[in-house]
Structures are given as structure tokens and as C-alpha cells.
């Protein structure tokens, strides 16, 4: 760093604190919102992605996993799928967003009824208690347990049923609700929908051919949607988070403008205040390019400090915030951190642009005036 840049920057501590603070605030907001978005994205689509299925079968027109608006006949579907050679194994699944109560308190859940044999679509990872629910039993996601204090041994109820919590699993947190797992039979009874399921999950003999197999399945059975896990996860994310993106973008742009305005103003006033000194430097033989570098370096260092502070705050505040607000699922990806670094760089380059243009106009002859 050039001597003049360093001295100018660090001799004005208050101003430095303001500009670093402004950038840090902006970086903090941007990276936090971005991480929050990533966190939600991860949660919302994560279950569908991780389930050991190559293809999901649903009723035509089904949009996503969470609204789970699909009805398929169990017998007919099972027979049809058994006849298809490319299918190795399949399992029916009942999914339904609903609310249950615990000690009179309402809890939103994503009910999943699965067939323990072969077990596709069941809890992803067991964290505590039984790994398969029996009749009248339920395994709940640990996020639900954390949020509502539902523990193994508790009972959660609907108007016509009681379920005893026998285990906890992870991987079924969708932010707005969490998965609870019962057997397929239990779900059919509870929902009074004997003979009907929501999805069929398929494992193919050759998983690499899932993209080719899906359209074939759709052709075989009109009125049915066959979609790969990845596509279904993406559709679910799009359905839930899609509407948030424009709003998020606006807030990110505003955060950027805040950072740009604060750093731009402080750098500008710092440059204007030192205009005479820049004139002196010109008079004694420093080039315009040198002066530009002096201002850019100050701007850049301010940006680096603001970035480190902002990202540091995000990393610190993330887990802390999640304890206070469960919906605050923050997922910091290094790609995003790199992106935010790029954004910060852009911010400080823009912030330095106007002051730098002013430098060119400074007349060194003026320093001969007393």
C-alpha cells in the first residue's frame, strides 16, 4: 500500500470507521440474506434430493413435494410398476401437509406415510429412538423437536388420532414445517384414504437412465407425472422460493446501494478535503495515475476491512440467530462469499470513481497560493 494512501486512510479513524462500518453493514445484509436464501433452498429441496429414489411418480399436474397434491390408486399403480422391466424396486408414499397438536398447541407438519419394507421415503437419518415406527407411533424430525419441544415419549394428536413419538430423525426440516413419519398403513387409516397414495418412488435397475425412463413411464400411463428426484427437488424449491426471489433481489440491491452510498460519500469527502495535498503531490511531480492509485487503494482497503467485518458478523450471527429464530437457517457457501467479495469490490470501485475523476481536475498551480 502506498504511504500516502495508508496515512490518509488511517489518520482519520472516525471516517475510516464510518466507511468500513457502512460497507460491513451492507456486506452483512447481503451475505446474511444470501445465506438465508441458501439455507431455505437447502431445506426445502433437500429431502426430495436425498431420498433414495431415481424417479417420483405423481398425478399429472402435481407441482411439488410440499403441497403434495396428488392421488394415485395403490393397487393399480403397484401392478403397473411391477410389470415394468426398468424398475428395480418401488415404494408407495403418502404425503400430506397438516396440522397436529401437542398439549393443545398447534404444530404444522408434513406427514409422511411410508412402507417400512423397502423403506424408500422414510426418515433419512435416525438421531434418537426407534428407526421404524409401529402402529400408532411416529418419528419426528429433530427440528420439530427443537422448535416445539416434542420429545420421545410425548404424544401428538389430531382430532381422530393420537401418535406416540418413538424416535427422532434429521433431514426432514422444510423451515415452515417439519416431517413426521408414520407407516403407510397408519397414514391410510388416519387420513381415511385406504387404497390411495400420493407418490410412488422408484429405484431403477440403471439409475443413469432415469432421464430416458421418465418419459417412457409417462407415455405408458396417461395422466401420470414421472419426474426425476433432482427435477422434483428443483420444482419444489421453485414453487416455495420462486416468489421470494424478486423481493430478495430488491433488498440485496438496496443493501448494495447503502454500502455504495456510505463508502462513496466518505471517500469523496476525504478526497475533497485533501484536494490541496493532492495538488501538492501533482506539483512536486506525481502523476495523475499515482493519485488515482492513492484513492483506489484507500477505497480498496476500506472494502477489504468492511468485507471481512461483514462476513465475520454473518458467520458469528448465523448460528446465534438460528437459536433465537428457528426459521433463520443460514447456510454460508464459499461460492457466495466469493460472490459477495466480488460485489464489495464493485462497490468500492464505484465509490472511488467520482473522487478519482475529481483528482484529474485539481490544478497544481493553486498550491503556490498562500
Amino acid at each position, binding site marked *: 500500500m502506498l504511504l500516502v494512501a495508508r496515512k490518509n486512510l488511517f489518520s482519520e479513524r472516525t471516517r475510516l470507521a464510518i466507511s468500513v462500518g457502512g460497507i460491513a453493514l451492507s456486506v452483512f445484509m447481503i451475505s446474511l440474506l444470501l445465506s438465508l436464501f441458501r439455507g431455505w433452498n437447502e431445506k426445502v429441496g433437500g429431502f426430495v434430493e436425498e431420498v433414495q429414489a431415481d424417479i417420483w411418480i405423481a398425478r399429472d399436474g402435481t407441482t411439488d413435494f410440499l403441497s403434495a397434491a396428488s392421488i394415485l390408486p395403490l393397487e393399480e399403480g403397484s401392478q403397473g410398476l411391477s410389470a415394468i422391466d426398468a424398475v428395480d424396486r418401488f415404494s408407495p408414499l403418502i404425503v400430506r401437509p397438516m396440522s397436529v397438536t401437542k398439549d393443545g398447541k398447534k404444530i404444522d407438519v408434513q406427514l409422511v406415510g411410508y412402507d417400512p419394507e423397502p423403506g424408500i421415503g422414510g426418515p433419512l437419518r435416525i438421531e434418537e429412538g426407534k428407526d421404524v415406527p409401529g402402529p400408532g407411533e411416529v418419528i419426528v424430525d429433530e427440528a420439530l423437536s427443537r422448535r416445539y419441544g416434542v420429545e420421545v415419549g410425548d404424544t401428538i394428536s389430531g382430532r381422530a388420532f393420537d401418535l406416540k413419538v418413538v424416535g427422532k430423525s434429521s433431514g426432514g426440516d422444510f423451515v415452515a414445517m417439519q416431517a413426521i413419519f408414520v407407516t403407510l398403513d397408519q397414514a391410510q387409516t388416519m387420513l381415511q384414504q385406504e387404497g390411495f397414495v400420493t407418490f410412488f418412488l422408484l429405484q431403477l435397475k440403471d439409475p443413469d437412465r432415469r432421464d430416458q425412463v421418465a418419459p417412457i413411464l409417462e407415455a405408458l400411463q396417461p395422466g401420470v407425472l414421472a419426474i426425476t428426484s433432482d427435477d422434483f427437488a428443483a420444482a419444489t424449491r421453485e414453487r416455495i422460493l420462486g416468489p421470494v426471489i424478486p423481493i430478495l433481489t430488491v433488498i440485496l440491491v438496496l443493501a448494495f446501494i447503502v454500502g455504495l452510498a456510505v463508502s462513496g460519500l466518505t471517500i469523496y469527502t476525504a478526497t475533497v478535503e485533501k484536494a490541496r495535498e493532492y495538488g501538492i503531490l501533482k506539483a512536486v*511531480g*506525481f502523476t495523475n495515475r499515482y493519485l488515482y492509485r492513492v484513492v483506489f487503494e484507500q477505497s480498496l482497503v476500506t472494502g477489504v476491512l468492511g468485507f471481512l467485518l461483514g462476513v465475520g458478523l454473518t458467520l458469528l450471527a448465523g448460528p446465534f440467530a438460528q437459536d433465537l429464530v428457528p426459521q433463520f437457517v443460514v447456510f454460508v457457501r464459499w461460492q457466495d462469499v466469493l460472490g459477495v467479495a466480488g460485489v464489495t469490490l464493485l462497490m468500492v470501485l464505484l465509490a472511488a470513481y467520482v473522487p478519482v475523476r475529481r483528482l484529474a481536475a485539481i490544478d497544481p498551480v493553486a498550491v503556490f497560493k498562500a
Partner: protein
Amino acid sequence: MPDSRVTLRLQNVTKVYGVGDAAVTALDSVDFSAQGGEVVMIMGPSGAGKTTFLTIAGALLRPTSGTVEIAGTDITRLQENDLPAVRREKVGFIFQSFNLLESLTALENVRLVMTDTTTRSATNRARELLNMLGLSHRLKSLPNQLSGGEKQRVAIARALANNPDLILADEPTANLDSARGQEVMHLLRQIALDLGQSVVIVSHDHRIREVTHRVLWLEDGRFRADVITARDPVCGQLVEVEAAPTASFNGRSYYFCAEQCLKLFEAGPQRYVEANEG
């Protein structure tokens, strides 16, 4: 003593500010040259074009016409981009208001301008220069912790940083009391003698005369050879011989700024003649 190297040469230099009715001719076909080791003083009334002369001589301002050579380089033929390097390497500037960078220490102010890229040798040379100017105990001081005389000495050290051929000083003593001003002038003269630099000083300060080799009178943008100046032995002010009240003593003529000084002189010439010419 001055050597034969010509460090600064202006030929037929004219500078006109503005255009049309607003045009001001600040320099009018000026010729000038200075040799190594020479201290030249330029005097003249306000608005005479002195600062304009210095800024043109220092490659800060382009003349409207004419040529300017600094240490053999015709700077009027150089591109704008090449002028900063000329100023930095061949010219040292000393200003009336010192013009140090406020957030840099004395040492850093000097070191900063050095073209020597290795920090250590630049620092060493800066320290040597400041030591030479009697500031060895002030290296780490910021300008606002220094007295005017100290600041100007730092500025001189900065002007000498790259061992330039030419030192240009605009009213270097105007912001100093007379003792400090005297000190600074003697330093400049010593530097010219020791280092062979040309020093061109613009000043109203008559006391500076003593240390200069030549005094030129600039008026209305021209050097006037016909103006012969003399120092008022009473108040010390420089006066134009032509228009001044005069008196003789011991076969010599003395010139005065005004009748008051003349009267004081006539009341006891001995005092003034001895005091000044010892």
C-alpha cells in the same frame, strides 16, 4: 560560485491567461537563464508575473509561446504526461505555505518524493538531508508539531530529495519571522554553493538580496534592466533608485523608501552606514 552549466533557460516566453477582452499577459517575451550554483532573486510588484514565471520554469504551466529548457531538456516539446517526471527529478519546489503533507512525518514527507525505489536507501537519504538541515531530532514529527522555520527546512529537504538541477522558491520566507527567514536564505545559498544547484527565488523580502548573486526586477511581465535597486539603509527595504529620495554620505549615494527614512538618515548617517556595512 556559479559554474557554466545552464540549468534553466527561458527564451522569448510569453504567457497570456484567458482570451479576448479578458486576456492578461502575465509574461511578455521573457528571456532568462540561470547557471549551476547560482542564486537568482526575482523581485517585483504584485501581479508582475513572478509566480507565473516560476510555474513555467518549473514545468507546471505551459507558456503561450517561447521555449523553456530545464537542464538541457526543452520541456515545451514534451508531452503532458512527461512533465511530472521532469518536475520530480529535475526541479525542487519551495512554497510560501510550506505545503507539507499533514499526515506524514517530516521524514516521510521527504522520503515520499524520492525516485529511489528501495525504501531503505530512500529513508537513509531523507534522514541525511534532514540532519544536514538541522532537523535530526524532528524526523518523526508531524508538520503541525513543527515551527514555521522547521517546516520550511523540511520543505527544502524535500526539494533536494532527488538532487535536482534547479530549485524554485516562491516567497520562501514570507511566512517566517526575520531570523528564521534569514536562516532559510542562508541554507538555500549554501545549498547552491555546495551542491551546484541553481536557486531561483521570488520574493518581496529585501533581506534576501544579501545572499543572492543576481537580483532581477520583473514588472508587467518583463524583466526591466533599467530598474536599478538599492536598499534603504534605514528600514532595509528595497527601492527603485530612479524614483527614490536620495542623500550622499562619504562619497556614496543612498536611496530611501520615503522622506521619513531620509530624515532619520540625515540626523545621524553614521549609525545606519555602520550598522549595515560594518
